[in-house]
């Protein structure tokens, strides 16, 4: 088992004058095996993204624990934490906000090399880009000069550079047209076959999730159930 979450809970405190709490997720348990694709479906506002953030350690749960390769991610030593940050990645729904608008694509794509101390090899980067259908000419462009589909592919390349083992895909195609969506899904499957990466595919599109995932979870009113 690659990743396991036990009885996760998250409560948001909202309001400024009239303070309230909303329990978005309660007692959510799930697991993901190495190299498999697991789907997470639910309506908008059901807490799917929150769960994705909890599993990637970008948000701390109020209850429950997340284990990656058997270790609780809340108690990782600095070096282990860095390794976790490399092997667990997330791709967001809105590719246009996932890139610094003031950086050309090259700088955004060189960032993972810098952050994780990987020697930067332009040829290797170009190779990564080619697998997602982007070319050297794209590197000198700003995010605003790329289409949504191109940016989402760039986001996939940026993540794959790190050789992740688990990637949360947070509605990666909901803003894209049918052909671009099919391209992205095929690309993700191809990368999975080649590198054995596991996915948690978050979607509100049950039909697409059924096609893409081996197992499905559904989040409804804060409860997680296996389908």
């Amino acid at each position, binding site marked *: 088992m690659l990743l396991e979450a036990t009885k996760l809970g998250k409560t948001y405190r909202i309001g400024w004058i009239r303070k309230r709490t909303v329990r978005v997720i309660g007692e959510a348990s799930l697991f993901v095996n190495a190299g498999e694709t697991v789907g997470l479906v639910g309506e908008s506002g059901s807490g799917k993204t929150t769960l994705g953030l909890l599993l990637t350690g970008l948000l701390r749960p109020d209850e429950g624990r997340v284990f990656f390769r058997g270790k609780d991610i809340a108690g990782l030593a600095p070096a282990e934490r860095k390794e976790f940050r490399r092997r667990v990645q997330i791709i967001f729904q809105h590719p246009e906000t996932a890139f610094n608008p003031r950086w050309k694509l090259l700088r955004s794509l060189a960032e993972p090399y810098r952050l994780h101390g990987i020697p930067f090899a332009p040829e290797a980067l170009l190779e990564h880009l080619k697998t997602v259908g982007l070319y050297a000419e794209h590197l000198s462009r700003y995010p605003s000069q790329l289409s949504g*589909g191109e940016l989402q592919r760039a986001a996939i390349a940026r993540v794959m550079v790190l050789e992740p083992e688990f990637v949360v895909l947070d509605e990666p195609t909901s803003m*894209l*047209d*049918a052909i671009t969506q099919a*391209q992205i899904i095929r690309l993700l499957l191809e990368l999975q076959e080649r590198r054995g990466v596991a996915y948690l595919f978050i979607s*509100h*599109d049950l039909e697409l999730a059924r096609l893409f995932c081996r197992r499905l979870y559904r989040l409804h009113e804060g409860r997680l159930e296996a389908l």
Partner: protein
Amino acid sequence: MDPVALAVRNLTVEFPGPAGVVRTVDRVSLEIREGERVALVGETGSGKSVLLLAILRLLPVSARISGEVWYRGRDLLRCPPDELRRVRGREVAYIPQGTGGALNPVLTVGSQVAEPLVIHLGLKRQAAFRQATALLARLSIPEAHKRAFEYPHQYSGGMKQRALVAMGVAAEPAVLLADEPTKGVDWARRQEILDLFLGLEGKTILTVTHDLWFAERFAHRVAVMYAAEIVEVAPATAFFKEPRHPYARALLAALPARGLQPLPGYAPEHAAHQEPGCRFRKRCPRASDRCLAAPPLLEENGRWVKCWHHAS
């Protein structure tokens, strides 16, 4: 047949850029009849949204627009600015995408819906706000009398889209231009938005969308755009049963329900549009030597297809 409500003729839009002029809409012609609902589909970057904006001259001043847009005996691309302002919102209204920043975050939704009523119908602010509230209620915003006083961030995505539709229809225009009404909206909400648009009876609607599910249920006719050109125009039922243009076929084959088969390759760069021949030929499974010459948009039994092979 109903009279033509809006006629786009030979419309071309170009943007000057550092790497030369980029032509995002290339000699597009499209007629929409009164009461007709037309969906313009195509992938990102095909120029469909630019086409929609060009109709009402809503593009930045750097855009170079040529061609004609006829509406009730006027060419909207050439009429004086004050006349155009009377048409915009009053006769032909644009409904932007709900997910973007189309609503003003510091004004209440009610006052934004009331604005066209003040501007175009000359209503007093209070009366306009009351009418806006009624309009929001009619578009099934729950507790509209309270929610009209709320700000856009307090609205869900589907409610924002409904508020934008309310703004669009407030001054009772005859023609609506809607940009991606279902983009990023989940399945349950999508049905609501579809019902909402189908409920606008008698309106002439041109919508740009990449949501084929929506297009199939919404439109009388479908127009497909690829690389700045219209490549197929067909009645919706016939189109979804049997698309003719190879690109249109690929578009449908990419749907999850129809196999999720992506088309190999990517849309050509704008610079490549200058090259002679069919723009789709490099990705086309049926490309032949004939495709080195650009095919015309030809009609056959009410269907227009820009492909040498479609008849065979």
